């Protein structure tokens, strides 16, 4: 398995991993924006969406980026200049830190962190800091309110997300994302190993809770109180323009992609195909072509999950602040605690 990896020198591997990480953040962001935000939303609203730039508007993204780069870099006069400038970068860096632990193939990982899931949950909370910084430094009441709402919401939904993942960790017996992938694909359901044992089946409640929490963490509708455009203009992003807004925008959709990657690793079997199809028994038997096939499988699963996120986003009205908090604390957290107890009892029983 490590034949391919050990033939490349360390600096070569480092360059490959940096490149792979950038692609894994930027490619999903672009795909999601074009495929879902431009096209799917338009079709759901009975319109065509962008059609002018390139065939079916496929070059629209480049036009948009060019437009943003040309815009004037506005900054409120009383803003806290340094914090204002650094806030979007904090948000985007949290996305890059997040993608580091996602495995895309038997050798195609950026780092094989032992406590991978735990790390991912920890660094995803760094983006809250950036949002609070942006909201405060804008010197604007709407921005500050948006930042505070975002912080309250993200703290509340981080808990069900962590608790939903605990079920998967108990079942796989490991916090390493690579091991979780192997445990699902090498597993079997009552002796039948035709599809492995994706935790979507056994951890269905955990999957639902995780996806709801992801929706809230991404502040996508119905959880978009922090940027509610009809009451807060656009919350903590109100004062941002040009390139800084672009960074926030990329961060939002890249994080959606990375969270979908993590969800597909945790619940849908990640990069793997059921090992019994090719007679593999463990990660050391997996053929080298999975390093190319794995990322493609991950991309497909990621697009499927983001489709659901966007579908919900375009379909539901916004929660009120009190409904949002009550939903997290009174429904999601108790249900995920029950899920943990049930999973650990069944784990010991079987």
């Amino acid at each position, binding site marked *: 398995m490590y034949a391919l990896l050990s033939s490349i020198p360390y600096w070569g591997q480092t360059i490959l991993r940096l490149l792979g990480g950038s692609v894994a953040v930027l490619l999903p962001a672009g795909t999601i924006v074009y495929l879902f935000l431009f096209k799917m939303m338009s079709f759901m609203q009975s319109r065509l969406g962008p059609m002018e730039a390139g065939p079916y508007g496929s070059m629209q993204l480049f036009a948009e980026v060019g437009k943003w780069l040309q815009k004037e870099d506005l900054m409120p006069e*009383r803003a*806290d200049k340094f*914090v204002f400038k650094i806030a979007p970068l904090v948000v985007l860096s949290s996305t890059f830190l997040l993608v580091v632990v996602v495995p895309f193939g038997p050798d195609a990982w950026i780092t094989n962190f032992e*406590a991978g899931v735990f*790390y991912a*949950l920890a660094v995803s*909370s760094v983006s809250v800091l950036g949002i609070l910084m942006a909201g*405060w430094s804008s010197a604007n009441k709407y921005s500050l309110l948006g930042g*505070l709402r975002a912080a309250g919401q993200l*703290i509340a939904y981080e808990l069900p997300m962590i608790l939903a993942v605990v079920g998967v960790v108990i079942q796989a017996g490991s916090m390493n994302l690579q091991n979780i992938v192997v445990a699902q694909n090498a597993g079997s359901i009552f002796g039948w190993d035709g599809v492995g044992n994706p935790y979507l089946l056994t951890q269905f409640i955990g999957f639902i809770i995780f996806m709801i929490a992801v929706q809230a963490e991404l502040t996508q509708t119905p959880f978009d109180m922090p940027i509610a455009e009809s009451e807060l203009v656009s919350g903590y992003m109100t004062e941002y323009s040009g390139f800084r807004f672009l960074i926030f925008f990329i961060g939002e959709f890249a994080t959606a992609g990375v969270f979908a990657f993590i969800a597909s690793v945790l619940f849908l079997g990640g990069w793997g195909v059921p090992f019994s199809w090719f007679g593999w028994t463990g990660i050391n038997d997996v053929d080298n072509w999975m390093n190319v096939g794995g990322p493609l499988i991950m991309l497909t699963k990621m697009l499927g999950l983001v489709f659901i996120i966007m579908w919900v986003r375009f379909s539901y009205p916004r929660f009120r602040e009190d409904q949002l908090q009550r939903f997290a604390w009174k429904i999601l957290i108790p249900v995920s605690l029950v899920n943990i107890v049930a999973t650990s009892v069944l784990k010991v029983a079987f």
Partner: protein
Amino acid sequence: MVAQNIAFGIIAVIMVVGALRVVTVNNVVHAALWLVLVLAGAAAQYILLAAEFVAVTQVLVYIGAVMVLFLFGTMLTRAQLGKEKQLNNPTWYFGIPASLLLLGVMILALTSSFGDEKLPTDSELVSTQAISDQIFGPYLLPFWALSFVLLAAVIGAIVLARKD
């Protein structure tokens, strides 16, 4: 080990500068942001010691929760932009002997318990399983005691926040 020593030095300098800025800067939010830098530096030091679980916990608890609540609280109540006068406690110089005393106690504790012992040059990765085996094995009783302390804090918060 040389690379780790250099990294330790750089991170330590950043942490010391950050810690000094926390107490000297005259804006509450800036002070909190400098504190974030210090805590992130501590997490990086844990990584250098190959204690990844502690490092990740540091990020999750201190940066992701404590500092966010800190900023949340100050922004909700009083977080002006720009410089703020009278942010410093007028009796700040009493802090100097206290911190010197703390430094002395720390040096004494470290030298008396470790002496000339050095860190292993290739420190082995402490796995999360090993830590949990320790917590839920020999250290179960202290762990329970700690959770009762947290429970007391939670109940206290509810009592304080209830209106009736």
